[in-house]
């Protein structure tokens, strides 16, 4: 193995270097100037995001434990952009609330290590790397959810997240041990050759899927989602809902379309039921939420149900539409969470009723929120429509007409509650609306990028063709 082959791990090494630089900076930056660490972190991560776009060859390292190809590389870039927007949006919150407590750098270090875990998870070539990556991505997020030490709700969110995540990883490990028992290896390539749909393999797969369903918050395993999103700091909630969920969906899709493809007869039926349950429960519970964070939590559960529409197909079209949808979902959800964060930071208000009359006082914020909600609901001019449209196409081409029909019914339900927020912002009057405020530069940038993403991604069609070409890597 040559030294140059380590450049396949360029993303991982760069991110690790940034985290280490921040640890050193934490020591050397004097106490009065801690807020400069925030600028340093955002600057370094911006460079890392930009450098990530350079092409990377396809290969594997460490005897196949670590592999990379162009789709994985592309998805890492998508995660990078998502985290970069997230950093821009949460910079103000860190500078105003966290730096005072002398813990600003900590936030970035934990966030970066979690992202590092996701890199390793999505480019894993065997179950060991996959497990270590999964845990590395989960444990720092639990620490982040409990980040506001003085708030009881934050600690509650942290303990709920870490206990559910530990249970989930225990269950999925039990499943992996069964897959290991039947196929004799933990390497994906070897398992693909040896796997056959016998009872023990199916049981192992179901346990493994249950563990992953916790991460994606699919329905029988979604109970932690709303509680954690509500209690955790908003930037952590948006990290959990977009980045963490996106990475977990991606690796689950790769595993199901390649390694576990021989079990397709089993997982087709399973995902059919889970997708329907997820969409209906997510949407129906979102109807009765008053808190914006809980509302977005249930909306993100419902979106996970839509993603399953692409997962059920097992085709190249399915892969492409899932990656495309996740990308658009990252932009739309980050825009929604960004507005919630901006308002919560300035006024501390988080309920839907507090948004009454927002358009009169803060027209720009309410327009961004409108775009984000339309994109989440899937209304034609914005990107979310195209994301959903390709998912429907992928599912319909495999003959799941009833499932697509029920998904469209769900879009109608979701439109109702998304429009509730829009009505509050644009039509309702309020005695004391949220006063006008100006956002700082970072927040403006963060919201601006999401708006551009929402408007452009759907219309710029070569992007979808590009993803479609890349996804040939996982569909032979």
């Amino acid at each position, binding site marked *: 193995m040559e030294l140059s082959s380590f450049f396949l791990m360029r993303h991982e090494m760069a991110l690790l270097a940034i985290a280490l630089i921040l640890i050193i900076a934490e020591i050397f930056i004097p106490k009065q100037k801690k807020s400069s660490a925030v600028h340093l972190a955002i600057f370094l991560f911006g460079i890392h995001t930009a450098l990530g776009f350079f092409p990377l060859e396809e290969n594997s390292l460490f005897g196949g434990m670590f592999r990379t190809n162009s789709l994985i590389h592309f998805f890492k870039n998508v995660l990078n952009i998502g985290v970069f927007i997230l950093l821009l949006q949460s910079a103000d919150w860190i500078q105003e609330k966290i730096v005072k407590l002398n813990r600003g750098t900590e936030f970035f270090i934990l966030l970066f290590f979690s992202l590092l875990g996701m890199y390793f998870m999505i480019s894993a070539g065997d179950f060991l790397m996959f*497990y270590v990556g999964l845990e590395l991505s989960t*444990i720092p997020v639990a620490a982040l959810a409990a980040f506001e030490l003085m708030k009881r709700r934050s600690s509650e969110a942290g*303990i*709920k997240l870490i206990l559910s995540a*530990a249970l989930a990883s225990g269950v999925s490990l*039990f499943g992996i041990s069964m897959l290991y028992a039947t196929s004799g290896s933990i390497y994906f390539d070897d398992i693909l050759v040896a796997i056959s749909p016998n009872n023990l393999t199916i049981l192992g797969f179901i346990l493994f899927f249950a563990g992953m369903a916790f991460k994606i918050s699919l329905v029988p395993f979604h109970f932690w989602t709303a509680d954690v999103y509500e209690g955790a700091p908003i930037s952590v909630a948006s990290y959990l809902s977009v980045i963490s969920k996106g990475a977990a969906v991606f690796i689950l899709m790769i595993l199901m379309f390649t390694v576990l493809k021989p079990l397709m007869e089993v997982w087709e039926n399973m995902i059919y039921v889970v997708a329907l349950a997820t969409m209906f429960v997510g949407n129906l519970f979102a109807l009765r939420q008053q808190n914006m964070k809980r509302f977005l939590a249930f909306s993100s559960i419902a979106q996970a149900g839509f993603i399953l529409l692409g997962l059920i197909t097992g085709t190249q079209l399915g892969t492409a539409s899932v990656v495309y949808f996740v990308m658009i979902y990252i932009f739309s959800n980050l825009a929604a969470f960004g507005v919630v964060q901006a308002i919560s930071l300035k006024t501390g208000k988080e309920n839907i009723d507090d948004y009454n009359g927002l358009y009169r006082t803060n027209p720009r914020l309410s327009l961004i929120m409108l775009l984000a909600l339309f994109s989440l609901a899937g209304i034609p001019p914005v990107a979310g429509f195209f994301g959903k449209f390709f998912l429907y196409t992928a599912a319909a081409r495999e003959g799941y007409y009833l499932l697509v029909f029920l998904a469209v019914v769900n879009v109608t339900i979701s439109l109702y509650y998304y429009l509730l927020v829009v009505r509050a912002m644009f039509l309702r009057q309020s005695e004391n609306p949220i006063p006008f405020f100006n956002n700082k530069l970072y927040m403006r940038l963060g919201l601006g990028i999401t708006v551009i993403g929402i408007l452009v991604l759907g219309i710029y069609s070569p992007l979808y063709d590009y993803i479609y070409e890349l996804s040939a890597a996982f569909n032979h």
Partner: protein
Amino acid sequence: MIPGISITEILSLTSILFFIGVYGFITRTNLISMLVSVEIILNSTVINFVVINKYLYPELLQGVVYSIFIIAVAAAETALAVAIIINLYKQISSVDVKETETLKY
């Protein structure tokens, strides 16, 4: 390899341990007990990996190596969970699940 004991018996033991862990996680109301239940689940999988490795595929050490990683990660997980529990205890003077119900639908 333990003479006189077949793989079926050990795998039955680990399955029982696994379900004890799940049962404990669902029924216990003390946060520490829930953490112990999760540890039982993880340890059952550790035994699973080692036994499958030893009895079925003794030529490679994949399962044994995997179990070492599980133990290490489980330790990190427990450390963090206990830290959060201690922080919660400082605020509400309790480690009971019933006290952590301010977030609810």
